[in-house]
């Protein structure tokens, strides 16, 4: 297979995504087109992207081409290297699953009043945008694709616009996306000025002074970090992601955030050249903040989709911690360790794409059949929806970083990288990195608490409302879509050596160093640095777990008497418990709310003892709003109130201002 096949497959993927968009135009006349043609086309686009990504990773090297589109003197450059290949693979895997899932999911909307054309059309454009960001090899195409991605996802967030909260969320998203886009554009401006060209090849050649490089880094971090939802610029994310239809939430949380990670890696690791360790420190600090605060907010949520969105903030924090470690190690000359942290970041990115999409699809399945997003109304869904329940369990175990699932492997790799901090010369870094790994450990434990809460409240126990009690199993396509992602979660957890073999070309191409030791002891053993330093064998862990479980089961079930009787719950001998007596999601999080209370703004009112109709009210607000967003908003409002004075309604005054501006601009240029 030649390298041209990679290009053709990628082009096919983009074409299919555009075709999905185009066919959706007819959906306003014939609603079934969305379900029968547009959504499957999205799935095929995903498959083509998977093929392109795998081919690029396996063949290695890079292919470039130019498209006869764009500005006359600046055709669009396309380049697929290992990094693009990996992210094509990531986009493709999730999109394929969504292509299977979505037809059944969008069926609900056929009866609604919302425009199906908008849903299908913008989904296709959204996917096109993400694919083109990954393929772009010049700043111009990159920005066009980036804005296409941002704008089309804005329309998807605003899809159910009758709801005022959705409109508000969409506007906030649009605003933040544009501030971020502006920062990225300025960052490219810095690079282009030194590289004398907007294509990435000339930016790579440029040599920047440390000051300018740091400025480019800061702008890129601001722009991509805002899109990735890093604290404290995360406020849009928990509003926007839950507002979109669930399969779009999966695409946004699972894939779009990764595209931001891709952009960051591309600009910082590939284009800016000389890396500086101070950047790594910034990433580690902001990443730790996002990870910890993200999971604490997730733990406090009772809306399932909002909870998942906050958990995305946490996972992106983890990815950026790993990238920060990579920066620190690379800039201090520890190429192998830098490569380890870099691979860990990529591994976690792809893991998060898989399990977060899986969880969002699960939340969508619940929404579809029980019409419920509020955890406080759920309960007992495992028995109503056994397939969704089982897949959601796999997703929960994966995201909680428990062996032998995929989340564990990437966090294990990050810990292994962090534990090599003793090799650094600077005492500050040697102390900072272990403390960051303490934060990571705390985060991991809190994630487990969060997902025990989610799974225990939603899928176990008894139903807390009538419509949840009568929830029905989702359609076959929805189950298969989730099953595919769940299988991938298990696969990526059990075969880490092979997956790292797949990721290694990226690190080898970007950083010049792979992980030669990772699979040196055979496919069974994952030994990132050397077999003396650390080893983990996921296949053997699985094998032994299964073996012991089999023996234990045989011993206890076959040998021991099989009598078993059903009875009422004992519950310390009280009356048979009713669903209302169960622990609620709010109650579950109460101890953590008390322990970490100083980090939130809590407005709580308890009923009085003699209250006839007691009501408990709890409002938990993000402190970031009061500390960052409201002051900025007020400042903008105050400034605009001043500017309004110019608006006299007199045309001559306006013309005067125009002329004055023109003169000032001419004076600046000359």
């Amino acid at each position, binding site marked *: 297979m030649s390298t041209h096949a990679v290009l053709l497959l990628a082009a096919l993927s983009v074409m299919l995504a555009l075709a999905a968009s185009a066919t959706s135009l007819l959906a306003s006349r014939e609603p079934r087109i969305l379900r029968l043609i547009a959504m499957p086309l999205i799935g095929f686009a995903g498959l083509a992207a998977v093929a392109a990504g795998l081919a690029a990773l396996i063949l290695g090297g890079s292919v470039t081409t130019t498209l006869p589109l764009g500005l006359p003197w600046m055709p669009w450059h396309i380049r697929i290297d290992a990094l693009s290949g990996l992210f094509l693979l990531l986009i493709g895997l999730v999109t394929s699953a969504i292509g299977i899932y979505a037809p059944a999911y969008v069926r609900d909307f056929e009866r609604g009043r919302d425009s199906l054309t908008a849903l299908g059309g913008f989904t296709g454009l959204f996917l096109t945008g993400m694919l083109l960001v990954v393929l772009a090899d010049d700043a111009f195409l990159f920005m066009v694709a980036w804005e296409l991605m941002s704008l089309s996802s804005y329309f998807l967030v605003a899809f159910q616009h009758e709801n005022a909260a959705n409109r508000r969320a969409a506007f906030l998203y649009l605003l933040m996306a544009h501030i971020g886009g502006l920062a990225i554009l300025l960052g490219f401006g810095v690079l282009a000025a030194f590289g004398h060209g907007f294509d990435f090849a000339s930016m790579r050649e440029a040599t920047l002074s440390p000051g300018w490089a740091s400025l480019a880094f800061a702008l890129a971090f601001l722009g991509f970090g805002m899109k990735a939802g890093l604290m404290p610029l995360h406020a849009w994310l928990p509003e926007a992601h839950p507002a979109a239809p669930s399969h779009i939430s999966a695409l946004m949380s699972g894939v779009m955030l990764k595209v931001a990670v891709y952009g960051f890696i591309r600009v910082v690791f590939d284009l800016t050249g000389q890396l500086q360790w101070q950047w790594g420190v910034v990433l580690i600090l902001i990443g730790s903040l996002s990870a910890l605060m993200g999971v604490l907010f997730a733990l406090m949520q009772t809306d399932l989709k909002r909870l998942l969105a906050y958990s995305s903030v946490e996972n992106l924090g983890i990815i950026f911690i790993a990238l920060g470690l990579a920066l620190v190690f690379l800039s201090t000359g520890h190429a192998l360790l830098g490569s380890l942290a870099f691979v860990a970041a990529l591994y976690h990115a792809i893991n998060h794409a898989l399990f977060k999409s899986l969880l969002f699809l699960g939340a969508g399945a619940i929404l579809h059949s029980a019409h419920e997003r509020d955890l406080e109304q759920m309960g007992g869904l495992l028995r109503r929806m056994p397939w969704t329940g089982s897949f959601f369990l796999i997703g929960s175990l994966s995201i909680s970083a*428990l062996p032998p699932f995929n989340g564990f492997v990437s966090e294990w790799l990050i810990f292994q990288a962090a534990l090599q901090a003793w090799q650094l010369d600077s005492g500050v870094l*040697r102390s900072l990195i272990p403390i960051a790994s303490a934060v990571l450990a705390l985060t991991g434990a809190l994630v487990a608490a969060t997902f025990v809460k989610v799974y225990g409240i939603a899928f176990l126990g008894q139903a807390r409302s009538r419509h949840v009690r009568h929830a029905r199993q989702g359609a076959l396509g929805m189950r298969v879509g989730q099953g595919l992602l769940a299988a991938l979660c298990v696969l990526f957890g059990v075969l880490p050596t092979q997956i790292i073999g797949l990721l290694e070309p990226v690190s080898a191409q970007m950083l010049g160093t792979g992980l030669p030791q990772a699979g040196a002891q055979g496919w069974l053993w994952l030994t990132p640095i050397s077999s003396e330093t650390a080893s983990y064998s996921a296949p053997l862990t699985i094998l032994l777990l299964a073996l*012991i479980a089999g023996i234990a089961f045989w011993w206890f079930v076959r040998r021991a008497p099989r009598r078993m009787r059903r009875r009422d719950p004992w519950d310390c001998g009280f009356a048979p418990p009713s669903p209302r007596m169960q622990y609620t999601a709010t109650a579950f999080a109460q101890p953590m709310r008390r322990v970490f209370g100083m980090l939130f703004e809590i407005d709580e009112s308890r009923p009085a003892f003699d209250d006839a109709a007691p009501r408990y009210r709890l409002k938990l607000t993000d402190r970031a709003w009061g500390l960052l967003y409201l002051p900025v908003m007020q400042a903008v409002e105050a400034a605009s109130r001043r500017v309004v004075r110019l608006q006299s309604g007199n045309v001559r005054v306006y013309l005067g201002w125009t002329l004055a501006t023109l003169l000032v601009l001419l004076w600046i240029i000359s």
Partner: protein
Amino acid sequence: MIYSWLIALFQALLYVALAPLLIGWVRKVRARLQNRRGAPLLQPYADLRKLLIKEIRVPHTASPLFRLAPYIVFVATWLAAATVPLVALDLPIAQIADIIVLVGLLGLARFFLALAGMDVGTAFGGMGASREMLISALAEPAMLMAVFTLAMTAHSTSLVSVMSHHLADGFLLRPSYLFAFGALVLVALAECSRIPVDNPTTHLELTMVHEAMLLEYSGRHLALMEWASQIKLLLYGVLIANVFFPWGIGQDFGLLALGIGLVVVLLKLAVLGLALATAETTLAKMRLFRVPAFLNLALLLALLGLLSHVILEVGA
């Protein structure tokens, strides 16, 4: 190769076999300290046997997960234990999982334990699960920090390397080890649901944590859950005994070395059991919201250990 795997298997079985003995010993010592005669030393074995042959009663409201959980909890705990060197040092099974995987396997067990608590849909189960997750969320970072201190000293996260490093060092008193030791002891008390964090003998509704999650279990399910928690106690005991005082552990697979290793580890565990029983007799259980302060102390000790290692010992 085969021989070493056989020894690993023997050691894994030893964990299952010895776990009830340790708990029996702790109970016996505690009874004597409280001027009671106490149950026989082998009572926990009899209890397990009784539970194993008893009929199982499962609540109407339970899902399949309720019946699956005891097996997963037991197996994950056992596998975690099997990777900790008990009588011999360089076993092949220790390569499967390093310290982080060990913490992960214990996390897997805890995840299913908490889910099982919530499955029936009673108030107590949810309460137990919520509290357990709070305690573990605070204990796990302290635990990882403590083992990271050891791992950074030995430049390896493998328990075997950590122990060999310590053995090769001789009796060298490192400040970081002292801090890590303190932290690990506090974490072990919390993770094994012992006084002062939780009271394993209580069935008073509002104070129980671990017991609240097991409230609906009976028969062999309960036996597996109890056994798993006994293995966990033994695991932490061995971890503390063999990591901080590795002397005596068998360094080759000769019968003499293994025999000495077994006797020595039993002696160490007896001393630890004595200390645990004494502590449980003299201390009172804390209120739930005092536990975070207790575990923060553990985290602080662990961090001090890590920092003293990074600052004092790396350059030296």
